[in-house]
């Protein structure tokens, strides 16, 4: 026991000894410390955080200055939720205690809804004449929600983005007195697209998209379109990691802007060394009916690169020869000729 205590004390004393020499500055060698040092030295190099990055984060910070601090927003949301819940509970208790009101019945059963004959008989006796039918209030987001009720939230719908993009080119219409949530959302998104495509300011576009997310959250009717715009802005800013993270979550189609997103995702996956996943994307773009457009050109060269990196020299060569046959003056034509030695 005494021996073990003495040993512990010695260990404690050893562990408190200052370390003077860093592994990362040791010369290369075969010792464990030298190997660890070499690894740590390589990992210590980080990409620079330059003026462009600083300006972009500053813009994002400024864009949130108009909003309530998160803490207060949460407290208000919780208070409103509790109030609504309390009100509903109070109404339910009252309803149970007093029994159903005969005046409430016609409102609960819409005129056109089929009602069992027995129930109709009962109601027609006690119900007052139906209230006059008013023109219904417009639903906030009928178009978007009705199209694909079961599609994943991130699925891209090209037509809506295109219309938003077109809208950004035209002067915005005069705001209505009480704009719906969809109108507000659409105006914000159109502004972001305008910043991105007309003013070529992806940083500001991203700030507006942050504002969109802060106001409407992931449940916004135009969230998929906002997401695609965000990816475009991130790509223009060179923030490939973040763009790829978003693209990984998208269910992309091979139509319209979906094709461009798909080829961008494939290239980013290849860049990050995720070549098998990249190859899948490239393959889906290069189906037999694929048009001979810029996307196909990029996909063909990208697939050749991937195949070469995965050790499939014959496949890579076939793709490069196919590339030169289809796009002899394409932007990768010189590299393709060099690679296959033509």
């Amino acid at each position, binding site marked *: 026991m005494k021996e073990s205590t003495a040993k512990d004390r010695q260990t*404690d004393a*050893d*562990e*408190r*000894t*200052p*370390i003077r020499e*860093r*592994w*990362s500055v040791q010369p290369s060698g075969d010792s*464990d*410390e030298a*190997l*660890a*040092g*070499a*690894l*740590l*030295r*390589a*990992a*210590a*190099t*980080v*990409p*620079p*955080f330059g003026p462009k*990055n*600083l300006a*972009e*984060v*500053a813009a*994002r*910070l400024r864009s*949130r200055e108009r909003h309530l*601090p*998160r*803490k207060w927003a949460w407290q208000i949301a919780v208070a409103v939720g509790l109030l609504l819940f309390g009100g509903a509970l109070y109404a339910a208790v009252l309803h149970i205690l007093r029994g159903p009101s005969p005046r409430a019945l016609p409102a609960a059963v819409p005129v056109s809804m089929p009602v069992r004959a027995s129930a109709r008989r009962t109601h027609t006796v006690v119900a007052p004449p139906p209230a006059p039918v008013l023109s219904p209030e417009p639903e906030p987001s009928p178009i978007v929600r009705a199209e694909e009720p079961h599609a994943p939230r991130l699925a891209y719908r090209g037509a809506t983005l295109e219309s938003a993009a077109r809208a950004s080119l035209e002067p915005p219409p005069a705001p209505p007195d009480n704009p719906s949530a969809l109108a507000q959302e659409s105006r914000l998104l159109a502004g972001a697209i305008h910043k991105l495509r007309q003013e070529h300011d992806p940083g500001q576009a991203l700030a507006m998209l942050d504002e969109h997310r802060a106001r409407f959250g992931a449940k916004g009717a135009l969230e998929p379109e906002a997401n695609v715009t965000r990816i475009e802005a991130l790509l223009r800013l060179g*923030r490939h*990691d*973040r763009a790829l*993270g978003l693209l*990984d979550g998208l269910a992309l189609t091979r139509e319209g802007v979906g094709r461009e997103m798909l080829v961008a995702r494939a290239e980013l996956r290849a860049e990050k*060394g*995720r*070549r*098998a*996943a990249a190859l899948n994307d490239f393959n889906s773009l290069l189906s037999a009916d694929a048009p001979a457009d810029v996307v196909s050109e990029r996909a063909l060269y990208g697939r050749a*690169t991937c195949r*070469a*990196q*995965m*050790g499939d020299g014959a496949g890579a060569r076939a793709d490069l020869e196919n590339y030169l046959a289809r796009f002899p003056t394409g932007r990768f034509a010189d590299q393709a000729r060099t690679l296959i030695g033509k």
Partner: protein
Amino acid sequence: MTSVRSDATPALEVAPGVPDLETVYRSYAPTVARWAARLAGPLVDVEDLVHEVFLVVRRRLPEFRGDAKVTTWLYRITERVAQESRRKDRFRRWFSRARQLEIERTMASPHLTPVDDFERRQSAETVYRILDRLPGKYRNVLVLFEMEELSGEEIATLTGLKLATVWVHLHRARARFIAEMKRDSEKRK
């Protein structure tokens, strides 16, 4: 690529009084970005982390009384934000990227990418894979000592630990790092 210790690093001594957000951002954002990149590893988006850090800074700046140095205060926020980001990243990888990591392990040689960049990225991934297996307190001290090249005293100031504790953590972190490095290398053979 930046050098190991950037020239943009402000001195650890900070003027007394409570600075405003603009000043703090202008003076310390590059330092925060470097800490965030080194604490969180190569798979994170540094801009997002810096943004998160300064959102916290803005929220808490009115409560900052200058009892601690600004750098110490900022470092602790960055450490927490980076830790949270790593936690989320672990979940994300667990759900969706486990297969990708397997694919990356079996990659052929990248003769169409610059070899040094590829090697550097591989080394960084190895280092952070090993660091992820270390307890946070050991991991951070090791990062500050080996990558940030801070002295024991500077680490103590930044983290608020006693100097003796810094050395204890560093000794243990080094021992664990070597052990995990060997285990990692065995696993990959």
